[in-house]
């Protein structure tokens, strides 16, 4: 019995080195700033990653394949950035192809993750990443998936100590929390509630000159949308600034005709479509936000256009003051608690902080 215990423990012992190896591979892939399979396979070969299966014997092969596929599966899903998810897909494909168990151990795909994978495929399609789509199709063609209920087998293993999942921070897409929180569903819901509340309010208080109806702001939803849009634009600009530095290094990789179009354009398109696929149509309501901004300083008028040159600064200032954080700007933006502040402060015109906000806004001008 003790032998049994050791053996089961053994395979579990590999979990952390396996994760480390995968993360190492993906971090190298991330540095190249590419989503090409060619780049991935080059790193794979440099690391001799196929050898990871070597040295397993008999039935251990199968349990090890299971372990490593389960570990790698997580990289295919959010919250990781598009590039890491592509890397995760390549990793799964390569692991599946080079495993030593026969018949090969399949990749477990959970029903709840299907939508993510579908969306991922669509993003890749939109950005014309042929190799991504081809490999995904190839996996399906080879029946590499177990269509299952959960990503891993569950044995009600409750842990006394909560093992922190320790997701690799660098792989996670920058602060997608605002986008996540304020998605198209929420906006729709909000519109409904808003309309309902408006009609209710007006039906009740017909006589009283609609004074309480004035508490409702008609453009709450457009404003919310455009704020998130603005945040994303600012964020991607930050990202683009970083990218510009090492753009030249990574550009020597274009090879086949479908990849000749600008890599960077693809990358940006893919990131955008990934992060913003849902709220993309919010762009048209940008005008509202600018008007809205002016509204907060109670100056109505098309001031927005004159300020367009300094959007970044104003956003920075705006973010700064609504976060009420003096420290690192980026830190503040990513933390979730401040996001609620960002929203709530903006959208409660009767709140006291608004006054202070106006003052700050005045000051920054």
């Amino acid at each position, binding site marked *: 019995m003790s032998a049994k215990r050791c053996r089961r423990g053994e395979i579990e012992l590999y979990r952390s080195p396996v994760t480390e190896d995968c993360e190492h591979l993906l971090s190298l892939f991330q540095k190249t700033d590419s989503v090409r399979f060619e780049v991935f396979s080059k790193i794979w070969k440099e690391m001799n990653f196929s050898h990871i299966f070597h040295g397993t014997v008999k039935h251990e092969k199968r349990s090890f394949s299971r372990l490593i596929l389960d570990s790698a599966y997580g990289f295919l899903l959010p919250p990781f950035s598009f590039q890491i998810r592509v890397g995760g897909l390549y990793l799964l494909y390569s692991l599946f192809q080079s495993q030593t168990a026969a018949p090969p151990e399949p990749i477990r795909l959970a029903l709840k993750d299907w939508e993510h994978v579908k969306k991922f495929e669509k993003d890749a399609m939109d950005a014309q990443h042929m190799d991504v789509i*081809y490999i995904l199709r190839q996996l399906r063609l080879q029946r590499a998936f177990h269509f299952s209920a959960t990503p891993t087998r569950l044995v009600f*293993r409750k842990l006394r100590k909560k093992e922190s999942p320790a997701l690799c921070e660098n792989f996670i897409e920058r602060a997608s929390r605002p986008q996540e929180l304020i998605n198209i569903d929420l906006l729709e819901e909000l519109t409904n509630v808003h309309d309902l509340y408006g009609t209710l309010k007006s039906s009740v208080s017909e006589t009283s000159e609609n004074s309480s109806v004035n508490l409702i702001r008609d453009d709450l939803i457009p404003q919310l949308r455009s704020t998130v849009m603005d945040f994303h634009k600012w964020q991607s600009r930050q990202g683009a600034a970083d990218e510009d530095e090492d753009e030249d290094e990574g550009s020597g990789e274009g090879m086949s005709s479908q990849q000749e179009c600008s890599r960077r354009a693809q990358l940006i398109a893919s990131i955008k479509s990934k992060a913003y696929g849902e709220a993309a149509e919010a762009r048209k309501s940008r005008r509202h936000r600018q008007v809205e901004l002016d509204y907060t300083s109670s100056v109505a008028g098309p001031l927005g256009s004159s300020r367009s040159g300094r959007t970044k600064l104003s956003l920075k200032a705006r973010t700064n003051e609504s976060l009420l954080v003096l420290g690192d700007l980026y830190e503040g933006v990513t933390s979730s608690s401040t996001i609620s502040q960002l929203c709530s402060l903006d959208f409660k015109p009767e709140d006291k902080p608004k006054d202070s906000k106006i003052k700050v806004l005045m000051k920054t001008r």
Partner: protein
Amino acid sequence: MAASKNANTNIPDYEYTDVNTNIFHIDSFKTEWLNRLQPGDVSFQPEDQDSSDALFAKEMGISADTMAELKTVCSLDSLRCHPEDQPPDPDVVPPDPTLKTLIQRKKKQDYRATLKISKNRHDLYADELERLTFGKKPETLDDMVAEGEIILNINVYYPATFEKFCYVRPHITVLMMGSHTLAELRDAICCVNDLQVCGEFSNMPDMAPDFISKDHFKSAFFYFEGVFYNDMRYPECQDTSITTIEWAKDRNFPTYTQAKMEDTRFVDLKIKVGFPYLYCHQGDCEHLVIITDVRLTHKDDCLDKKLYPLLTHKHRVSTQKCAVCHVYIGRWVTTNDRFAPSNPCLFCDECFRMLHYDTEGNKLGEFQAFPYVDRGAFN
């Protein structure tokens, strides 16, 4: 996304992350999957590579040249880490590994090389079992498992009488199809308590009957999500769950319902994956039952219907040997026995008869003897 998940409760999501899922209906789960997939995804037949490549090129609007290039880029050769003509031995860790996994495995391999015994009996059993279960094809098409059928992975744990239960969870794992009934699962569970023979037979050891407890006491039930599924296949079967239900009724518990084990298929069940449920037989022999996995069939599964329920893992329990010879597994247990070094004491059949009976088969001295089946007897 969150809203759509809530709306559809048959898409399993975690109730507690990595512990168990929320409750869902297995048949609806199957339908959900099949609605999302194309028939090809669950087919057992391999698809033609060339035609699918052509389809892909057409769909994407790329030329044949580009397609060919894409294929080379994504081919397996691009992943090979060694020259084509010198494949390394996959059973040996390559020298000077850099991957953390391999460094650890190398240590293990070096340690193994220092051991005198190279083969572990448990490894042999596990290898054997794997050989028997993977990729079996039926002889006739009638026995073929249907495409898109549900496969359940069920762990049935041994009764928790072990001191070490906190560290090891001895269990058997069986694969079942969604179309199986719970009664078929019951028949697949082999518990040593079903095999015991009750009674004292010191006066006539040859007369010990062959009736085992399973034939005497046929009642059993499963418990899944508030429903007791009783075995009512035989006229002798009793409703053993009613005691619990009545007891719970008086004590303000949620009401439990009953159903028949033999009429309930797995696809009809509503369960949580990873959540412990109960199998109880012989009145009080209780096993935990955990459904660890629910998924669609795959072409590499065992496709022969007749081989299901399919045993894929069995915990081998250490056996208790005869107190005299220390070779054979105990078959008799005696009490108040003055020949025995302990009370109670285990004997194999041979030693038991030699020690306790003369050549004519007459009982020597006073003692009680009970037939005994070791829990590891069917390893």
